[in-house]
């Protein structure tokens, strides 16, 4: 079977769940081969976890400056790996970084780029959802190597233990005139909550939350359901919650099993970011709010009464059962 290269998302110590999903997706096309870009020693730390999830080879593209520059080391590493392995496809996670890496790689290789795939079949046909969930599109790469950015959460991560071979890729030195250096990083302070785009439950607040303090109600419900917190653009613009939690056309697209919208009216831009959620619950005082029309379960009522009651009830049922 040909190799399918998977770019590993990691924090230096742990592999992100989205990478395990890519390994699952890659198995449909060939033998998953993981490419680890990082400082020396990173691949050795991650290898066991990658092999447990089915990576038959681990390519180590390591250099002391690998983490210091935005995207360029990953693009260089994948380009090197492609020239060495001649893979059947390259898969990356459709994150902010991943989409840019995929694009730059595709341009360098004159390859075909598919972004935001939510499914993939064994012939490499990708399913995408476009225009904020109003169309399902099936596309394939017809020229050059398929470079596919897969939306996190679209595939199940599976344990599939194999023996992984390890190989080194010699990263070229980074051209400082052509690369942006990362001089500081601040992690998102999400506490123990799952990452928004990867969460199976998302609880979002809108203008109806009526203030930064009101978001405690949203957070408490999210915690009771072990979910992530999101916010509508109106709530973000009003300063109730930080921008990186914005769900919608100009924020993040989410597709969780359960999406709970609290005090969100349902502007088309917001719906574009969450319409593909499996089950939608909406709570809004305004019986005319558009989001109530597309919710699987709509509550006309005060979120400050409904959400805490729901959170308490979930906690109580968990304890009982």
């Amino acid at each position, binding site marked *: 079977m040909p190799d399918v290269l998977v770019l590993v998302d990691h924090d230096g110590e742990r592999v992100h769940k989205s990478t395990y999903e890519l390994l699952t997706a890659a198995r449909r096309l060939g033998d998953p081969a993981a490419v680890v870009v990082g400082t020396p020693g990173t691949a050795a730390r991650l290898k066991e976890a990658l092999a447990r999830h089915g990576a038959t080879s681990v390519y180590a593209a390591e250099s002391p400056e690998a983490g210091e520059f935005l995207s360029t080391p990953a693009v260089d590493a994948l380009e090197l790996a492609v020239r060495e392995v001649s893979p059947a496809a390259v898969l990356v996670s459709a994150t902010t970084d991943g989409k*840019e890496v995929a694009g730059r790689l*595709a341009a360098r290789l004159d390859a075909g780029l598919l972004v935001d795939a939510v499914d993939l079949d064994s012939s490499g046909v990708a399913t995408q959802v476009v225009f904020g969930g109003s169309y399902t599109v099936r596309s394939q790469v017809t020229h050059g190597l398929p470079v596919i950015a897969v939306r996190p959460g679209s595939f199940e991560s599976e344990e599939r233990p194999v023996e992984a071979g390890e190989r080194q890729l010699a990263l070229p030195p980074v051209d400082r005139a052509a690369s*942006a250096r990362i001089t500081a990083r601040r992690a998102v302070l999400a506490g123990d909550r799952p990452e928004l785009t990867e969460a199976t439950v998302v609880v979002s607040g809108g203008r109806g939350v009526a203030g930064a303090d009101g978001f405690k109600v949203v957070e408490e419900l999210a915690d009771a359901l072990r979910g992530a917190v999101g916010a509508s653009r109106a709530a973000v613009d009003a300063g109730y919650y930080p921008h990186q939690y914005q769900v919608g056309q100009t924020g993040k697209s989410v597709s969780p099993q359960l999406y709970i919208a609290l005090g969100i009216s349902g502007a088309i831009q917001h719906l574009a970011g969450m319409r593909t959620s499996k089950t939608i619950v909406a709570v809004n005082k305004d019986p005319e709010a558009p989001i109530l029309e597309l919710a699987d379960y709509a509550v006309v009522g005060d979120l400050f009464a409904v959400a805490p009651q729901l959170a308490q009830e979930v906690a109580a049922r968990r304890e009982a059962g």
Partner: protein
Amino acid sequence: MNIVVLVKQVPDTAAERTLSEADHTLDRENADLVLDEINERAAEEALMLKETVGAEVTVVSMGPGSALDAIRKVLAMGADRGIHICDDRLRGTDVVTTAKVLAAAVRTVEDVDLVLAGNATTDGQASAVPAIVADLLGLPQLTHARELTVDAGRVRAEREAENGEATLDAPLPALVSVTEKINEPRYPSFKGIMAAKRKPVETVDLDDLFPDVDDTGLLVSRTHVMEAVPRPARAAGIRVTDDGSAGRRLVDYLIAQKLV
């Protein structure tokens, strides 16, 4: 300083968007076309630099005849000149070719210090074009910036991504893509709209941008849309009015759906 701003005309996200049945490209005839909102913020950032450090601002857009409206709007905001890439052969082109064509247009501007773009367009949302243009031009990419500083031949940006924030630093020339958080774009004044009519806009096609190559290599279609199916509208589900017990009843629903 020479600044190039890349802008795109897109269907208004506040309206319904449809794909043509014939070739699955955007049905432009039935769409309200507007200058993409995030691009407007990229233009605003260029104009603020023009006011603070002095700059010649060139606005570049690829698209059919109507894209001229998007260029004129940025000229009305205060940009100096426009380049309109207009060529029927570019209809429905993929992300990689789009970036190659935009990069070629940027190369026609002399001594470019800064290329500015929006971080994503609201129609395609691939969010990859600015990074590809940077790669093709050999420029550092400072993408998804919610804050930008240009000083002493260097550019610094605060980048926002789902895994956290980062401060980026690079020498000029560089490419920066901005998020919608970066600023509030100005409205063109009446005077600006009148002045924009006299500002130069150069219309170029593929033969102008790539005089030495035939278009077969450039325009080769790398991807093919096999099928585009409108998704069924979500039907309204259960609707209740809270009588003081909605939260408790909702739990029963969530348990029945195996969501709790």
